[in-house]
């Protein structure tokens, strides 16, 4: 009790002077309002049916019935889509995408699809150590990136190379990273598919699940402090939504009023864990309201729905300074990674059905073809050219030297410390003295 009195007096005294700053949002005066007790004479009479009480947090109504909120709604939250399974628009109320943007989106989706197939094969052939595909989630990857600007900062999990491709990261650069050669802008420090690029405003992929979610909130807060016309966006899966970091991030984003888009790729699987073993809520979209975050459920295999939803979310996030949660329903057609064989825990015909009948790339293709913006010839030209490009990139990347020895030792700190400089010198001297004991592709 004494605690609130002290704070109340502190608050009272501060009301009488102008602070020497000009805050964007006056958080402080709002803070203690809920703890100030109402004057008892304003209480409703005991016989009034609309009795309320002002516990901390605001007024709530009394009810004499003991009512538990059900653990599920009778109806699941509906899912927003623009195109039907055949690529036909369901209504006319969506943001139109120009031919140029639509064709670019489609080409990028095809690029992603082919890139994944070829790199997966390369891993199977032993040419790279690891790979994880994005098959089935091309619409989420590309359409979300298309709805953002270059100033919006991206915090990926590891199944979102699409935005990087959209922003101009080349297939050759992807190959360099997967082969960890000296042209990898990650200096060979990470496993394949752990891309990152400052230039493209895309934060380096980390293997730790959902750690990027609170990072995106912090970055969004910084963008707000700098008054930038930009938001941050973070991607994670259904599995990631179980992590503590997801919950802390949503809570904080709401309280800090941070312009961040949380995009959950609910693809049904967290390695071998189906969503029925992941959570018992109606997916991830309902968790938004629990934290005071506006949310929407979207058909993740519908490129136009994703585009519309992300664009709207971005507008809300920046102009209203609020977080937005988008749950994109989709299906992980590929295995979790090259270390997984998903036929061990799900039927092969289920995978095939989603791969063919529900392919987001084919669905979007139908829409652009119907608009007269694409045809079979363009399709085969694109696919052939991409295949050539990819095979060439892989061949080139494979034969390039690995990163130099210095790259073991630098970037640990801003300035290399003396012990590492010493060790680097010892290693170089040793290699010079005993060159036959070291592989040829180590340059000293």
């Amino acid at each position, binding site marked *: 009790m004494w*605690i609130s009195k002290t*704070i109340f007096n*502190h608050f009272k005294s*501060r009301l009488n002077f102008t602070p020497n*700053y*000009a*805050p*964007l*949002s*006056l*958080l*402080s005066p709002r*803070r203690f309002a809920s*703890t100030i007790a109402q004057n008892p004479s304003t209480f409703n009479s005991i016989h009034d049916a609309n009795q309320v009480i002002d516990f*901390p947090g605001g007024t709530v109504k009394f009810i004499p019935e003991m009512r538990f909120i059900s653990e599920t709604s009778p109806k699941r939250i509906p899912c927003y889509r623009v195109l039907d399974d055949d690529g036909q628009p369901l209504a006319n109320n969506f943001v139109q995408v120009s031919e140029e943007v639509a064709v670019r989106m489609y080409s990028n989706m095809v690029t992603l699809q082919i890139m994944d197939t070829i790199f997966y094969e390369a891993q199977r052939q032993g040419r790279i150590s690891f790979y994880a595909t994005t098959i089935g989630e091309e619409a989420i990857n590309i359409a979300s990136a298309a709805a953002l600007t270059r100033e919006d*900062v991206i*915090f990926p999990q590891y199944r979102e190379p699409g935005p990087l491709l959209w922003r101009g990261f080349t297939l050759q650069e992807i190959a360099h990273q997967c082969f960890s050669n000296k042209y*990898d*802008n*990650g*200096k060979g*420090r*990470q496993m394949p598919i*752990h891309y*990152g*690029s*400052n230039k493209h405003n895309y*934060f*380096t992929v*980390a293997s*730790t699940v959902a*750690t990027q979610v*609170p*990072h*995106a*909130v*912090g*970055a*969004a*807060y*910084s963008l707000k*402090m700098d008054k930038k016309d930009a938001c*941050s966006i973070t991607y994670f899966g259904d599995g990631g939504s179980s992590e*503590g*970091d997801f*919950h*802390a*991030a949503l*809570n*904080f984003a709401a*309280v*800090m009023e941070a312009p961040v888009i949380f995009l959950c790729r609910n693809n049904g699987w967290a390695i071998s864990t189906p969503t029925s073993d992941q959570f018992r809520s109606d997916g991830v979209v309902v968790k938004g309201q629990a934290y005071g975050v506006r949310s929407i459920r979207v058909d993740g295999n519908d490129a136009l729905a994703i585009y519309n939803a992300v664009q709207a979310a971005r507008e809300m996030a920046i102009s209203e300074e609020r977080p937005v949660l988008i749950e994109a329903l989709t299906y992980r057609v590929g295995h979790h990674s090259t270390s997984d064989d998903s036929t061990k825990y799900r039927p092969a015909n289920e995978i095939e059905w989603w791969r063919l009948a529900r392919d987001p790339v084919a669905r979007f293709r139908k829409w652009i073809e119907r608009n007269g913006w694409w045809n079979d010839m363009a399709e085969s030209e694109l696919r052939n050219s991409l295949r050539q490009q990819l095979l060439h990139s892989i061949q080139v990347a494979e034969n390039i030297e690995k990163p130099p020895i210095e*790259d073991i030792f630098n*970037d*640990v*700190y*801003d300035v290399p*410390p*003396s*012990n590492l400089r010493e060790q680097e010198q010892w290693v170089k001297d040793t290699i010079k003295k005993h060159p036959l004991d070291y592989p040829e592709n180590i340059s000293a």
Partner: protein
Amino acid sequence: MLRAIRHKNILPAFSAFRAFSSSAKEMTVREALNSALDEEMSADPKVFLMGEEVGEYQGAYKITKGLLDKYGPERVLDTPITEEMALICLLNILQAGFTGIGVGAAYYGLRPVVEFMTFNFSMQAIDHIINSAAKSNYMSAGQISVPIVFRGPNGAAAGVGAQHSQCYAAWYASCPGLKVLSPYSSEDARGLLKAAIRDPDPVVFLENELLYGESFPVSAEVLDSSFCLPIGKAKIEREGKDVTITAFSKMVGYALKAAEILAKEGISAEVINLRSIRPLDRSTINASVRKTNRLVTVEEGFPQHGVGAEICTSVIEESFGYLDAPVERIAGADVPMPYAANLERMAVPQVEDIVRAAKRACYRSVPLAATA
């Protein structure tokens, strides 16, 4: 990346020193930390504070007193559980959240100073400290720099039990990518905290709750707003020629008291205040051991894999031939910290332990165990 910005008219958050009739000024460690935060926030608008109770409550230990009033809620962020001061247990759970957010802000270009109510709670957030902060510059090949400071009380306080008393110096100092500092005096507190905030790498800043109220003399140079201490340099607090005693944080005070007692018995002890646990100032330590030929390492934390173990190895690697006696290691007892006052006293190093160890290193006959 030291910026020497001179501020003639810095308004301290509150009176930062008492002037005596002579010109010697004294300052508590709390005032030193507060003034350092104030000056760095004033010099660089990208510096901001985050943590529980740092704002309205003026800081759980009043380290951030006055800063919310001066810089506003945009730069001094109370993290959500502020109102529930009594629910200390909840604070642990939410630590993970704001550390990740602090790291995210640092990624984008701000310079957050994140306060942990104690470093025990940092365990909840340690994945972000190590995997998101320490390793980011390396994993991103220099593209993501994380100029963040994690600060707060570390080690034993008084009567706070096992989950509030652990020392994390050895844990964090083992991780490449982090810098780990631990001040003792007010001069250390001011100079090292300023250096930590200005540093482009993530820094773990280990304070001590029991030192916050202790007063130390500070020179005019220390009080200047551009004052900064170098990271990675230890300080020789007391010169000596018979035995080297290394310590950090509160144990420096104990080591100095032990040196006084030893002096009366004819043993001249050299006391080294490490200041920087990572990088460790191996050259100062080794130079001292080459002079005295005997070493006693002191720390409050658990003995196995502790700071003393690393110092001992460094000396053996570089100055083995100079040692005239085995290295003595004083550390906390290898048990979770008990609560009862008599047991707590026995679980933490005391001045007598340091004196006995120094004597053993000097081959004076002493009983091995503490008498009751």
